[in-house]
């Protein structure tokens, strides 16, 4: 991240902006993990905000590094993060819904449940 030429180009400026943006999203994720009071809202902040922050930080590092084999590996991590994080979130939400021990609590703010109205167990 240190500048060898000494000058500030447009790519370094874009890189700083993306990295600071991603760090802000990570801090928002940590605060929301403490503040939210339902499992599904916590899963929501863990899915969307964390994926966006990670992609933003990796794009910032790619803007710093330029085109090389290093940036290719970072792009591989970005594609992998985009594919796998919604899959794990969906698996966790489905496992938590069909688990009988930890069903939806009484003082939750979930007001609609479309999945329970469907016949033969929803989307099996």
């Amino acid at each position, binding site marked *: *991240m240190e500048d060898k030429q000494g000058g500030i180009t447009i790519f370094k400026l874009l890189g*700083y902006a993306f*990295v*600071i943006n*991603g*760090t802000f999203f*990570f*801090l928002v*994720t*940590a*605060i929301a*993990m*403490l503040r939210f009071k339902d*499992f599904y809202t*916590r*899963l929501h902040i*863990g899915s969307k905000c*964390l994926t966006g*922050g*990670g992609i933003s*930080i*990796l794009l910032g*590092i790619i803007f*710093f590094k330029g085109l090389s084999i*290093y940036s290719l*590996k*970072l792009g*591989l*991590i970005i594609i*992998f*993060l985009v594919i*796998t*994080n919604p*899959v*794990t*979130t969906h*698996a*966790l939400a*489905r*496992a*938590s819904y*069909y*688990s009988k021990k*930890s069903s939806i*609590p009484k003082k939750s703010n979930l007001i609609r449940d479309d999945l329970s109205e469907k016949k033969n167990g929803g989307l099996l």
Partner: protein
Amino acid sequence: MIEIIIIIILISALLTFYRVIKGPTLFDRIAAADSIGIMFLLVLVLLSIYFQRQIFIDVAIVYALLLFVDVLIMAKFFGR
């Protein structure tokens, strides 16, 4: 600059660890542990730039793959 970013990400991982200890249900703990894993993945990528070592990026790729399989197997195992 990069040290400050690493320290902020570590502070947010420490705040998320509170949810792992005091989660009401089991799936809260799994979701919070998944979040901590992704934060440490980004810390590993940033440390690779800080120490100028390219081998940490390969470690980060394998870590992301293991994290995916780990959470998927835990959701499959505890869901029944």
